[in-house]
């Protein structure tokens, strides 16, 4: 996958500098930053949403690049940008259908008065040009129509097959500029695709973009697959496979299409998680019926046992600074949430109140922990601070389970199961404020979502 940010002054010179097309950008480690508490969205989605006009991206000349026409891509990229911004719940995109297309010359000289007349507070313009070296150059601009000012200018050189990523990068730049939040659209999700009857579910590892695009099945369904997690660099997926009727954690190499065991053991290993830097893996292991949490290098070696109570200690999620782990334990009776240092010291219960609390996931921003609350026959998704305060429930359904955070810590995905013989599982997401609940499109039923960081 090649997506290379470029300055748009370079873009104009690009055909004279074909060397750029051949050099993949080096992956950069995810940067975790703490930010101020975010604002709360009040009211319904129909109020206060900024109207953004997004006409089809222009092209200097219609060309066919690897079977894709630059003018068609201009419309499709605009559609993906509009869908991303709409899904955020903050914006009311207009176009590309139903509004005029723009010329290549207009991209840097918008007709502000016309967009104002359409009540668009902002307008997105852009272009898709052939790079001359088999790739594409995509530019996108965000303007304030009232001020007549340019707010965003982004350029990307891409391989034609990565055009959706260019659209997500544009949408991210627009979203970040207007909301002040970190980007999150250009990211991927690993999850479990489910099919077949409930008593004999076929469960396959699958991956897709954060909007459901570029969907791909990884495993064939012959062995049950559950609880996947993308490595921070997206090159690997750690998950549990019932291959050969055993319960074991595997690391799947996405590019190679091969997998290896996290650790050799005759015991069941499950509930794996990556450390934020991708060097360590947490997993749970049951020995004679007693489950504890272990940490091991992603390259193997000797595991370190972190818990030793007689109860079930399971799961676990690193804090974004890699110094603490939040996990669940039933040592007090029912499942509750605890934190500890990464060496297992200083184990402290943080969840109290009614019901049980499970599946904790530390926000990439570090400020909150998402979890599943069980009580009254229902599972709901909630958040609390790392010290257990400020509990807020975000969903209210029969069974919502297993939250996972967007890269910017603003949106939570989870899976929802409906009761009964015909019960289904599906992927959903909700804003941190509990509004903007949406179902993710998947080709089959879905569960166990795992949202990765923003792509480099």
């Amino acid at each position, binding site marked *: 996958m090649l997506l290379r940010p470029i300055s748009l002054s370079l873009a104009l010179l690009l055909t004279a500098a074909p060397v750029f097309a051949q050099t993949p950008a080096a992956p950069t480690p995810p940067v975790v930053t703490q930010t101020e508490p975010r604002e709360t969205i009040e009211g319904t989605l129909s109020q206060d949403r900024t109207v953004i006009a997004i006409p089809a991206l222009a092209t200097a000349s219609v060309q066919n690049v690897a079977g894709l026409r630059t003018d068609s891509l201009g419309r499709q990229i605009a559609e993906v940008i509009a869908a991303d911004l709409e899904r955020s719940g903050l914006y009311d995109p207009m176009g590309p259908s139903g509004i005029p297309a723009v010329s290549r010359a207009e991209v840097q000289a918008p007709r502000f008065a016309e967009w104002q007349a359409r009540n668009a507070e902002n307008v997105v313009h852009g272009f898709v040009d052939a790079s001359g070296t088999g790739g594409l150059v995509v530019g996108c601009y965000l303007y304030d129509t009232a001020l007549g000012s340019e707010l965003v200018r982004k350029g990307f050189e891409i391989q034609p097959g990565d055009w959706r990523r260019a659209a997500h990068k544009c949408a991210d730049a627009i979203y970040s500029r207007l909301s002040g939040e970190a980007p999150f659209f250009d990211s991927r999700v690993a999850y479990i695709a489910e099919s077949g009857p*409930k*008593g004999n*579910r076929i469960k396959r590892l699958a991956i897709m973009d954060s909007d459901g695009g570029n969907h791909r099945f990884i495993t064939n369904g012959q062995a*049950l697959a559950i609880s996947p997690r993308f490595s921070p660099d997206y090159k690997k997926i750690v998950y549990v496979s019932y291959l050969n009727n055993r319960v074991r954690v595997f690391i799947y190499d996405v590019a190679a299409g091969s997998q290896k065991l996290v650790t050799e053991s005759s015991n*069941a290993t499950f509930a794996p998680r990556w450390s934020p830097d991708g060097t360590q893996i947490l997993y749970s292991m*049951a020995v004679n019926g007693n489950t504890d949490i272990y940490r091991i290098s992603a390259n193997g070696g000797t595991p370190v046992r972190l818990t030793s109570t007689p109860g079930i200690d399971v*799961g676990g999620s690193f804090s974004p600074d890699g110094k603490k782990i939040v996990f669940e334990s039933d040592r007090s009776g029912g499942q509750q949430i605890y934190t500890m240092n990464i060496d297992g010291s200083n184990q402290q219960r943080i969840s109290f109140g009614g019901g049980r609390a499970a599946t904790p996931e530390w926000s990439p921003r570090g400020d909150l922990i998402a979890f599943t609350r069980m009580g009254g026959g229902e599972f709901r998704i909630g958040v609390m601070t790392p010290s257990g305060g400020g509990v807020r429930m975000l969903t209210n359904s029969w069974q919502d389970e297993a939250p996972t955070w967007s890269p910017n810590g603003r949106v939570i995905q989870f899976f929802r199961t409906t009761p009964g013989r015909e019960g289904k599982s599906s992927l959903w997401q909700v804003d941190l404020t509990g509004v903007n609940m949406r179902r993710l499109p998947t080709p089959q039923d879905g569960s166990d979502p795992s949202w990765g960081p923003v792509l480099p």
Partner: protein
Amino acid sequence: MTIRKSTAMIAAITMLAVGACAKKAPDTLPPAPEGTGTDTGAGTGTGVVPGSQEDFLASVGAMGDRVFFDYDQYNVDAQDQATLQTQSQWLQRNPAVRVTLEGHADERGTRDYNIALGERRANAAKNYLASLGVDPSRIQVISYGKERPAEIGSTEEAYAKNRRAVTVVIGR
């Protein structure tokens, strides 16, 4: 909170359990044992191979291959002990046979916790069989958590049938 309310109910559950067993997935069922005839097991004389899964079920009764647990519990109660004693007698008559103890949970737990809970249940049953003299090396354990319910449904009745540890013959 126990599921054994009456003899009639046991009979009903038995019928359902047999059906659920027959519908098990190929990928969760071990390979069918080959009838080598080397065991001197309690064959029924009706073509059932001694030491086979069919022989086991014929001996312990269709319901006798599993024990049930209360919500979030894994203790082996008196009725479970009786079931496991019947199983141990068959296992001691067929000393070359190995079995898998499958631990299961109902759908009212989170996925990873339920795998841990199924491990507890399968090990509780394994330990009881071992206490009766069955060599524990003959028993392997696997937890399916909530992944393989025997009874589909979101009712107390279905949940009670799904909180189980099932003994399955895997060969010798």
